C-alpha cells in the first residue's frame, strides 16, 4: 500500500468511528453552541458581541477541539488499537497524517457551525470578499490545529490523567493560531472597522504554523507512539 492510501484508510476509519458513535454531532457541536450562548450571557451587549465575535468563534473552536482530540485518541488507546496499528507495521507518518485529516474534517464542520452561529446570534455581517477571506482563514487554521492536535493528542495518549493534561499542553501551543485566526477573521467580518486586506498577513502566519507543525508532527509521531 502506498502512504497516500494508508492515510486515506486511517482518516476514513476515524470518520467511520465518528459516524457510528456520533459523539461530535450529538455532544461536541451542542457544547460549542452552548459556549457561544454563554459568551452572550457573559458579555450582555450586542455592540460588544459583534466586535468580539471573531475571538469568541475561535475560543469556542479551541475548547471544542480539546474534546475532539481526547475522543480521537480515546478510541485508539481503549483497545490498544494504536499498538495494533504499529505492530501491523503501519507507517507512523501515515497514521499521523490520517488522524490529522480526520480531525481537520471534524474541526472544519464545527467552525462552519460556529461562524453561522456568530452570524445569527452576534449580528456579524461580512461582505462577499469577507466571506472568502473567512473561508481561507478557516482552512489555514484548521490544517494547523489538526496537525498540532494530533501530535499532542498522541503525546498524552494512553497515559493516566491525559484528560486534564491535554488542555495545559495544547492551549499554549495554539496561541499563535488563536491570535492569527482571530485577527484574520476580524478583518473578514469587518469588526472594529478592520478592512479585508488587513487579514492576509495573519493568514500567512497560520500557514507557517500549519507547515511547521505538519513537518514536526511527521517527524515526531513515530518516536512518540513507538514504545
Amino acid at each position, binding site marked *: 500500500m502506498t502512504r497516500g492510501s494508508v492515510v486515506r484508510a486511517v482518516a476514513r476509519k476515524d470518520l467511520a468511528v465518528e459516524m457510528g458513535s456520533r459523539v461530535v454531532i450529538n455532544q461536541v457541536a451542542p457544547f460549542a453552541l452552548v459556549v457561544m450562548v454563554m459568551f452572550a450571557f457573559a458579555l450582555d451587549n450586542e455592540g460588544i458581541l459583534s466586535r468580539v465575535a471573531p475571538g469568541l468563534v475561535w475560543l469556542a473552536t479551541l475548547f471544542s477541539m480539546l474534546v475532539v482530540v481526547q475522543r480521537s485518541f480515546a478510541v485508539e488507546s481503549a483497545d490498544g488499537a494504536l499498538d495494533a496499528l504499529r505492530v501491523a507495521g503501519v507507517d507512523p507518518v501515515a497514521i499521523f497524517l490520517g488522524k490529522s485529516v480526520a480531525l481537520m474534517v471534524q474541526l472544519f464542520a464545527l467552525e462552519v457551525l460556529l461562524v453561522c452561529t456568530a452570524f445569527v446570534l452576534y449580528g456579524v455581517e461580512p461582505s462577499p470578499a469577507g466571506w472568502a477571506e473567512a473561508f481561507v482563514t478557516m482552512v489555514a487554521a484548521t490544517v494547523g490545529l489538526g496537525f498540532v492536535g494530533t501530535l499532542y493528542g498522541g503525546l498524552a495518549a494512553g497515559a493516566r490523567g491525559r484528560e486534564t493534561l491535554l488542555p495545559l499542553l495544547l492551549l499554549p501551543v495554539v496561541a499563535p493560531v488563536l*491570535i492569527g485566526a482571530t485577527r484574520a477573521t476580524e478583518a473578514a467580518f469587518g469588526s472594529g472597522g478592520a478592512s479585508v486586506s488587513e487579514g492576509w*498577513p495573519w493568514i500567512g502566519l497560520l500557514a507557517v504554523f500549519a507547515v511547521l507543525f505538519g513537518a514536526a508532527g511527521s517527524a515526531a509521531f513515530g518516536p512518540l507512539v513507538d514504545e
Partner: protein
Amino acid sequence: MTPTGAHATTGTPATRRLGLVVCVLLVLLVLSGLWWSAEDVVQGSTVRIMYVHVPSIWVAYMAFALTAVCSGAYLSRGTRSVAWDRVAGASAEIGVLFVAVSLVTGSLWGRLTWGTYWVWDARLTSTAFLFITYVGYLAVRRLGGTLRQRARRSAVLALLAVLEIPLVHFSVELWRSLHQEASVANPNAKVEMDGLMLFTLMLGLATFTALFVWLVLHRQRVILLEDTVADRGLDEAIASRRDEAGAR
C-alpha cells in the same frame, strides 16, 4: 556509579566545594545589591530588584537550552542514555522555578515603576507562555510509564517547545505591534550604568549561574535515586509474588 544503600546522598566533594562558593557569592551579592551599590537616579531603590530579576531569567533561558540539548542527545542514536533525560528534567524544573522568580520580581518592579503589575507587552506575554509550556513539560514527566517512555515523551516535548516558543514570541510580537501604540515604559532603553551597579549585575549573573549548576547536579541525582527506589519497589513486588506462588 549508582548511589544505592541507605546512606546514599546527592553530594560529592566537588558539589560541596561548589556549594560553598555559591554561599559566598550569595552573601557578596546581597551586600553589593542592598548596601554597596548606589540608588538609581530615576528608579531609586527599585533598581535593586534587577539584581535578582535579570539573573533569574538568564538562568531560566540557560536551563531550557540545557533541557533541549539533553533531549536532543537522548533522542539521537549514538547517545541514548536515561542520564540525559535526568539532566533534562532537573534543568527544566529549575528553569520553571527561575522563570517564576523573574515573573514575580518583574511584576513587583513593574508595580513600582510603571504603576501596574502586568502590561500586555510582547516580552512579558511570551515569558508567561514560556512558564506555562514548561509547567506542562513537568506534568508530562509525571505521567507514569517506564523510564524509557518518560524519557522519549519528554524529549520530544522539549524539542517541540524549541519550535513553539519562537513561534509564540513572533506572533505575540505581531499582535502587540498592531494593537498597542506606546508602551508604558520602554524596558529596552539604553541605560548608562554606574560601575558598581554593573558589577553587581554581573555578580548576580555569576552567582545564579553557579547556583544553577549546583542545583542541577543535586536534582538530577535525586531523580536518579527516585528512579532507583521505584525500580527496587517493582523488583520487590515481583519477588514477593514469586514467593507467594512458591508457597502455594
